[in-house]
């Protein structure tokens, strides 16, 4: 039962994914992460406009199994959050790489992107 790892995304050792689009990046949790968490019941997201530093707590995801902190994979300002997660957090389970995204961050330090893992490096972690 292999967890999906998408070739065109960047990853962290703590199972977040990052999709860089110019000056901004979309952040979510990986298929492996959602599968480990099991059924997600709440997602507590940050406010848009908040500044965060790489490694800080980005949001908290609660599943029937545990409460887990999701860490910011990169530094910047929260531009948008996925409002749909408030009422239907289960889309993180159903579609972790598309509809289940968490936040969009305006990057403050583009160099940090290079330090992220590519798909092959992340696969080796699993």
């Amino acid at each position, binding site marked *: 039962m292999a967890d999906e790892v998408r070739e065109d995304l960047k990853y962290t050792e703590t199972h977040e994914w990052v999709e860089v689009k110019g000056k901004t990046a979309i952040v979510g949790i990986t298929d492996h992460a959602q599968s480990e968490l099991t059924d997600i019941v*709440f997602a507590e997201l940050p406010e848009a406009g908040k500044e965060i530093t790489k490694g800080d707590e980005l949001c908290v995801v609660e599943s029937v199994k545990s409460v887990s902190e999701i860490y910011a994979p990169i530094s910047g300002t929260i531009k948008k959050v996925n409002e749909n997660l408030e009422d239907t957090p289960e889309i993180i389970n159903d579609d972790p790489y598309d509809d289940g995204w968490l936040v969009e961050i305006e990057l403050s330090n583009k160099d940090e992107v290079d330090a992220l893992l590519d798909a092959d490096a992340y696969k080796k972690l699993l």
Partner: protein
Amino acid sequence: MSLPSVQEPLLNKISGTDQKQVKIPKKIPESLRRTKAINIPNLDETQIIRHFHHLSQRNFGIDTGIYPLGSCTMKYNPKINEEIASWPQFSCLHPHQHESTIQGTLQMMYELENMLSELTGMDAFTLQPAAGAHGEFLGMLLARTYHQNNNDSKRVDVITPDTSHGTNPASISMAGFNVVEIPSTEEGTVDVSLLKKTVSERTACFMLTNPNTLGIFESDILEIADIVHDAGGLLYYDGANMNAIMGKVRPGDMGFDIVHLNLHKTFSSPHGGGGPGSGPIGVSKRLIPFLPVPRIQKKKDTYGFTYDHPQSVGKIKGFYGNVDVLLRAYTYILMMGANGLQKASEIAVLNANYLKKKILEKPGFDLPFRDLRKHEFVLSAEELRKNKKVRAMDVAKRLLDYGVHPPTMYFPLIVKEALMIEPTETEPKNALDEYAQILHKIASEDAEIVKSAPSNTVVGRVDEVNATRNPVLTWKQIKESEK
């Protein structure tokens, strides 16, 4: 035991006696009579008794079968505890009674404090916390007050390993400290070199369970204590796993400054369903002045409460703790004696290692980290998940079909698909053999059967997502939802 196959209705859904049949005596004046029917169930005694009897038949307790819930120490609760607790000299006391009329109870509490001090190697105990997590919270308040009293308020970090009980970080946060989590080694124990790097002038305390939640004894404990003390921090002992080491090694001798015990676990009082519990806190000499009030004092042959402790953290519980649980623990300790407690720990460790070996004899479950365990062990169902998509949760649900209680699941988080098993010393060998057989059977069963379990229980698989997101906890909520 045969269970009724239908769901037991709520009391007010059982059709009862017609209220009009109740004759109201004529002497009650019209002005004092109700004009509207009162909204309470109107049932016969037979109906009430049957209702509660049905519910009691559906309960599962240690008197029903094996209950190997890891880190919970679900041991048999000797009936003599209940008998003594039911004596009117104890059960009919009122907390406002004058001290001179409760000398026996005060003596019991005073002696229990001393027994727990002796067992743990601490200098003093308070019996007030109502449960383990309450004890932890008090422990953190004591650490904070201690550092503040030393004009050392910059100590705001409390370190805890990633195997710690979930209540540890919660207690740390509740007391206003920052949680600093450190990952364990590949052996499943505290990473001593990482701990060295992590401690600083900001470290208030290190919270540790020993043996830890993997059931592994932290054999570097003396070095760990030195590291924490040299950095100016305190060492906190989470007593959830005390059942593994009674009479063998004492937290005080390991260097711990603050210790909590779970009397309802280690000292045998019933605690399924959430309580009542008791989480006494023991401390080393330097922390005694900060213990909560009231403290119990013996003057000549008279016992009494004292409140004049100016450095105390104050009151942390109404009245004097859960006295009925204290009484059961006191009875248990006296009945067991020092040798009995030591033997209990030995057999608890033996039972855990026997059951572990039995389960690992056949395929299905693995044991991550090192082999020898204390009173509990954590299996991984990851192979079942890979091969058959059967998860730890499914195994737990299927165990219900076989009439036994599942282990603790998905904890500690560092073990994938964790099943944390603690049989305790009170399970006979045949119960352990049977539990291993059931797990083997489940591992070889058709995945669909396991994934749809339980099917032999009154209530089938519950919708956990819905239960978490939309909990219905009161009758009022049920009424609202029916509208």
